[in-house]
């Protein structure tokens, strides 16, 4: 007896027979448009964030793959340049070779880095590319050597930051 009674009351309520006053409707065309607009704006920013984060993750794994080895190799270049500087005049051809080798390392590193470390690597690569072995001076090679050491230190710092991120 009770269950049919409840069902009848529910039916009346839903048909508006009991409460004759018109209820404010939420799902109007206007509110739906507003909600959809807001959702598309939010999803736009979400897409940008996902895009940014994907690029960040991609560079993270690209660096993890070969970055540490390249940093060691670049350090090897700076070490050899320092050795050649013991007798600059005797080792000018070897210095040019070593600088050319370091350009290749920096080029690979640049594609794996992000942020200030990438900018520093690019700046050094351009500086070495502009260096002319025949017209270059010992002072210039010394400056390149010191900048190379600084770039290696900076990339190592970048590497340490990545260690904390993962």
């Amino acid at each position, binding site marked *: 007896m009770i269950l049919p009674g409840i069902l009848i009351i529910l039916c009346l309520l839903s048909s508006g027979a009991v409460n004759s006053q018109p209820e404010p409707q939420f799902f109007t065309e206007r509110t739906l448009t507003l909600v959809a607009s807001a959702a598309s704006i939010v999803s736009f920013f979400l897409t940008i964030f996902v895009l940014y984060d994907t690029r960040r993750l991609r560079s993270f794994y690209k660096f993890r793959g070969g970055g540490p080895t390249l940093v060691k190799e670049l350090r090897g270049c700076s070490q050899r340049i320092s050795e050649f500087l013991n007798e600059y005049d005797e080792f000018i051809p070897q210095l040019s070779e070593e600088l050319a080798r370091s350009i290749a390392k920096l080029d690979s590193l640049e594609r794996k880095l992000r942020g200030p470390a990438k900018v520093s690597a690019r700046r050094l690569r351009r500086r070495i590319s502009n260096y002319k072995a025949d017209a270059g001076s010992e002072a210039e090679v010394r400056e390149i050597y010191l900048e190379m050491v600084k770039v290696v*230190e900076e990339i190592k710092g970048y590497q340490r930051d990545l260690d904390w991120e993962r």
Partner: protein
Amino acid sequence: MPIEKNKWIDAAGKLLQLTQDEKLEWQPRDPPAYLNLEPDRKRVEVVYEAKYKDRKLRLYQFSYKVEQPRTSLSAFKDLATYVNPPVYPYWTRKTVLELLDHSGFGAWTFPETEVLDDLAAAVRYQAAGVKEFLDEILAVAS
């Protein structure tokens, strides 16, 4: 990179240049006893001393044993570590440059930079007289 760190690299670079230009002369010496208190874990073979504008500098490389770490904080280490895991214990080297006080003790240690390793190589090159040796050899050969 912090400017402070750059300053130390530049300073060590200047010492390297002075050494390579033979304006700074390094003399090999026996290491003081306090540097070899635990020879089975850390040892110094030789130290090099130089005087620069009334200040004494001491440069040395110490070898130390690296034991296997108990736990690793990170599950992901460098890929290279997985491919070629280090065999523990192993020995490695570190270069130290000190500014000495009047009694010969290390009053202050330069921050670690890779230029110090290159400085140590240049000092060994100078102390061993490699340049003179090469000149002599080449003079005889010609």
